[in-house]
């Protein structure tokens, strides 16, 4: 779905409310301001407004659950329905003080789940029970019988769709379950009541179900409130002259590509939010590309065949959980986020590192890295800027550190990582030779099938770039603008690089 629709707009409005609540929390430590969170469902759905669902009360109940996810709680973990949002917000403050976040990183808002009809082919009453009967004749499983109207025997049907293609009256339709269709690893399925559940043993946190659900029933467990609490605590300690850990933001080039204003203004706005220092993740991308080129040249010399990129955490997780045959093919080089966090830690050893990206799966990678404490997405950053009243257009820009160039900044578009590795490879000493490269642009079911062919050696190349999101990170699950615009804005950023 387009990055901008009514579901994403509601999500961003709610994030803005959460951000505002936590920013207005008086620095005295009083929780008076936090209580505002319980008013949000009423503010967004007042009694005088037309309801989206059956009634305004249901809309409010669902908003309450959306807020729960945005406060960083899994809906599945709710024990007491009557707990106020204020009580949850207070728990956020305790959680932030101890600095703990945990997976899983996606949660299903069962109250919002539409319990879509099970995915299958269905004959509608447009069926004319014609003489030619192309549906019956084309069915490879003899699953169709006609008695005044065609009907499909679900026991025999294999969902090939040939009947639908054959019907001249377009009387056969495909019923889809968007989240199930989007999931590349069959990790989401219905329970007896028809509600969707995520099997976290299979889930790779690609976020495709969240993007595709038309009811917005799948949500990220946000870490934004934790970050805002930590920023407020740091500010309070600073004003009292006490020592406190500062926060450092590292932002992905895909996030920079969400805005029209360019890097200088983004860096200044992050400082204005209270981050003590700011790094481009494109800096770490330069290191990733360099190390990956060195690793590739070693592999090429040894003739050990295919190497895949490793920077996409949803891809890496897919290999771990579903494609173990590819494990030895994945580059052992760490991701741009990791190397950027190392750069930041070298300058600020005690700082709390916050990664800002377009990605859900980075939350898992961050936790496993031991370097990055929190992950924010582009929507959360947008909500924080709006809540803080920071105007990107009018803020005085601050030049980024001179650590990144065209290669690193080009990482987030499909083909960008392979291009960067190839560019570094040709400049390695004694390594004038190039290499062959291919891209798996998007981990859908087709992408997975192609990966299996590479794993089996039926497809060959030297360097295989894999990105879980079609188009690359700029088309990630938690972005603000459509990929075409993001690409154009990224091109401008790259063009303005030295």
């Amino acid at each position, binding site marked *: 779905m387009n990055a901008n629709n009514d579901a994403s707009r509601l999500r961003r409005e709610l994030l803005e409310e959460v951000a505002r609540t936590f920013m207005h929390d008086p620095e005295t430590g009083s929780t008076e301001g936090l209580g505002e969170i319980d008013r949000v469902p009423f503010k967004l759905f007042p009694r005088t407004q037309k309801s989206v669902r059956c009634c305004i009360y249901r809309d409010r109940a669902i908003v309450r659950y959306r807020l729960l996810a945005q406060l960083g709680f899994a809906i599945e973990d709710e024990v007491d329905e009557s707990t106020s949002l204020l009580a949850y917000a207070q728990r956020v403050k305790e959680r932030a003080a101890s600095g703990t976040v945990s997976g899983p990183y996606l949660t299903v808002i069962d109250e919002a789940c539409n319990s879509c009809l099970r995915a299958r082919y269905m004959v509608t009453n447009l069926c004319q029970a014609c003489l030619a009967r192309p549906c019956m004749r084309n069915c490879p499983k003899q699953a169709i019988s006609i008695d005044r109207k065609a009907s499909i025997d679900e026991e025999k049907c294999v969902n090939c769709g040939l009947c639908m293609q054959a019907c001249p009256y377009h009387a056969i339709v495909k019923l889809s379950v968007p989240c199930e269709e989007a999931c590349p690893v069959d990790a989401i399925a219905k329970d007896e009541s028809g509600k969707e559940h995520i099997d976290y043993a299979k889930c790779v946190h690609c976020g495709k179900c969240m993007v595709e659900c038309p009811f917005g029933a799948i949500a990220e467990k946000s870490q934004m409130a934790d970050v805002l609490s930590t920023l407020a605590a740091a500010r309070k300690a600073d004003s009292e002259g006490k020592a406190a850990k500062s926060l450092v933001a590292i932002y992905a080039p895909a996030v920079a590509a969400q805005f029209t204003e360019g890097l200088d203004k983004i860096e200044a706005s992050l400082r204005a939010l209270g981050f003590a220092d700011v790094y481009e993740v494109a800096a770490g991308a330069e290191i990733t590309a360099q190390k990956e080129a060195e690793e590739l040249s070693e592999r090429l010399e040894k003739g050990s065949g295919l190497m895949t990129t490793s920077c996409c955490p949803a891809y890496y997780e897919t290999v771990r959980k579903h494609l173990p045959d590819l494990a030895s093919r994945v580059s052992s080089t760490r991701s741009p986020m990791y190397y950027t966090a190392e750069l930041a830690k070298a300058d600020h050893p005690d700082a709390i590192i916050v990664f800002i990206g377009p990605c859900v799966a980075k939350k898992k990678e961050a936790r496993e890295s031991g370097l990055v404490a929190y992950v924010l997405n582009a*929507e959360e950053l*947008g909500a924080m800027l*709006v809540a803080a009243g920071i105007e990107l257009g009018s803020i005085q820009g601050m030049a980024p550190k001179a650590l990144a160039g065209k290669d690193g900044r080009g990482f987030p578009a499909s083909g960008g990582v392979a291009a960067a590795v190839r560019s570094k490879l040709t400049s390695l000493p004694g390594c004038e030779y190039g290499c062959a490269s291919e891209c798996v642009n998007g981990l859908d079911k087709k992408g997975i099938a192609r990966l299996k062919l590479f794993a089996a050696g039926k497809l060959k190349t030297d360097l295989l770039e894999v990105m879980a999101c079609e188009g690359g990170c700029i088309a990630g699950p938690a972005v603000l603008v459509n990929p075409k615009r993001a690409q154009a804005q990224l091109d401008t950023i790259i063009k303005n690089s030295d």
Partner: protein
Amino acid sequence: MDKRIRVTVCCGTACYVLGGSDLLDLGEKLPADLRGRVDIDGEPCLGLCKDSKAGARPFVKIDGVVLSGATVSSLIDAVRSRAEVLDRGALA
């Protein structure tokens, strides 16, 4: 000749974050009969978000008239209405 229509999209951070970015790309989405007679500009925050009576974000102006809670489709409708008003004026 057809009178031109000026569309001013608010590029303030709030409008942009709440979907205004799509409105900037209106040019690609306009139906053929309206394409070529609409000038689309982004402007820094128009200040409408600070006015509680102005309605929902994102904001856009069509020949100076404010459209609130704008989506690509509501904006196209508003541009079409404006075109019809201008065309009637030209006939009279």
